[in-house]
């Protein structure tokens, strides 16, 4: 069993192969040098830790030895020879596979603007260390992109005593996927922390200004910075799949069992698109820690013949300052929103379809307050329930009591 891509999804797949009884070889191939690590801490604790931390490893040497998982670090897979069932690595080594899993992830989208050679991006641990080195007290950090990467980095940079400007192109941050009230609360929290958050702003160019840089806005205004980070999205890594003729569609195209157009090749995590059974088989691609873990594990089972369908409720979280934003499910297409007051100015929003089905839930607040409620909402979503909106709104009706058997 061979896995190309040694991130969260690949690591979980390797472990799942062993957990589900595979005793033959398991080879996990990664381009990066570090042992498989998880990415969420890169924008948070890796930035804010007092002393420079190591990578947040999830499948270290002793666990790999215990589970007999071969890990090839710093190894680029350059071709898949499907008929021969071989993965070719840079340097010529060929690795035979019975089943192959592609967990190649995504790369940070590059800003396509004049003068962008000095920009920093965040995807890998190496990227994180390069950014961390710039987050010194009193330095001015410019962040292009008011998405989750940009906002988490803004919070971390503030914590390190940097001056921070966040520039978001859209009229507000987090336009898609969260209610206006949640986006507003998060924007307020950043401003209260001293972040200069500007929305509706376009970037014209990045200029060198001595050993500083100036972000030139479309209206001609300039923001002088000591470092500029762009967090403007991620592009799935599909070139290996494309070159060997696998079908692509917003990533490597897989079915509900995470199988590609080749019956012996699977894909999971940030790199793949799949039809979601809870959402009318709408084809989606998720960039989330839970999805990478759950899909990696399910792909591992299916490589051994399980034929399991992936139908986990999409689950996402973002930590910024003392707040956590959580979204369960996909709110797109919701026709009604019901709010539940959790106290202390924290609201939980339920997003309902036209027929009353609960599609998604979202909240922002201290995680101790919202995590369990979102988890219960996730269970209501998984069971395709149509909860009574009044029950959802009333804080004296426990969500647990609404769960159908």
């Amino acid at each position: 069993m061979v896995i190309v891509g040694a991130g969260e999804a690949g690591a979980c797949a390797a472990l799942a192969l062993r957990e589900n009884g595979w005793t033959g070889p398991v080879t996990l191939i990664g381009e990066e040098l570090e042992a498989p690590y998880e990415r969420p801490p890169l924008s948070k604790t890796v930035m804010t830790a007092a002393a420079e931390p190591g990578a947040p490893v999830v499948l270290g040497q002793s666990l790999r030895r215990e589970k007999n998982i071969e890990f090839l670090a710093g190894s680029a897979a350059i071709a898949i020879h499907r008929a021969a069932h071989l993965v070719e690595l840079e340097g010529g080594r060929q690795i035979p596979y019975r089943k192959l899993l592609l967990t190649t992830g995504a790369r940070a989208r590059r800003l396509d603007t004049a003068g962008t050679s000095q920009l920093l991006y965040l995807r890998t641990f190496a990227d994180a260390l390069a950014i961390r080195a710039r987050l010194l007290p009193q330095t001015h950090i410019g962040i292009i992109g008011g998405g989750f990467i940009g906002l988490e980095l803004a919070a971390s940079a503030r914590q390190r005593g940097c001056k921070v400007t966040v520039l978001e192109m859209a009229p507000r941050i987090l336009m898609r996927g969260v209610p206006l009230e949640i986006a507003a609360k998060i924007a307020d929290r950043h401003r209260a922390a001293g972040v200069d958050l500007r929305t509706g702003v376009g970037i014209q160019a990045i200029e060198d200004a001595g050993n500083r840089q100036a972000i030139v806005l479309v209206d001609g205004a300039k923001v002088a910075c000591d470092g500029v980070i762009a967090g403007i999205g991620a592009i799935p890594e599909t070139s290996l799949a494309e070159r060997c003729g696998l079908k692509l569609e917003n990533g490597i195209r897989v079915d509900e069992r995470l199988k590609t157009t080749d019956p012996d090749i699977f894909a999971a995590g940030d790199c793949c698109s799949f039809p979601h059974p809870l959402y009318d088989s709408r084809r989606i691609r998720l960039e989330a820690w839970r999805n990478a873990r759950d899909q990696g594990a399910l792909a591992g089972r299916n490589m051994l013949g399980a034929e399991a369908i992936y139908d986990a409720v999409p689950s996402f979280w973002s930590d910024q300052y003392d707040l956590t934003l959580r979204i369960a499910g996909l709110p797109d297409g919701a026709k009604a929103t019901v709010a539940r007051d959790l106290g202390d100015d924290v609201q939980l929003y339920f997003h309902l379809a036209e027929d009353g089905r609960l599609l998604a839930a979202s909240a922002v607040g201290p995680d101790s307050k919202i995590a369990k409620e979102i988890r219960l909402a996730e269970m209501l979503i998984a069971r395709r329930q149509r909860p009574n909106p009044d029950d959802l709104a009333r804080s004296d009706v426990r969500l647990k009591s609404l769960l159908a058997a």
Partner: protein
Amino acid sequence: MTWVEACGTGDIDEEDVIRFDRGDRTYAIYHSPDGKFYATDGLCTHEAFPLADGLVMDNIIECPKHNGRFDYRTGEAKGAPVCVNLKTYPVKIEAGKVFIDLG
């Protein structure tokens, strides 16, 4: 043996958990669906998130932060990302009060 009173039996719903702090230590007290009481360390072994903010399902406590799961009767870590077991403490009920043995 150091038996410490943690709470009243009526303080925890069935299939639920509450937090109990003593000094600088945090514990979690559980009321199982079949009416028994259990106690464990109160912080997740993964990233120290308070378990009492999590969900009890049958004999499992799920940490709300990253969904790590433990069997609260034995402390056994049951699902990634948790891999270190929780410490458990003996529990006795006397006169409607839950006592835990802190050793």
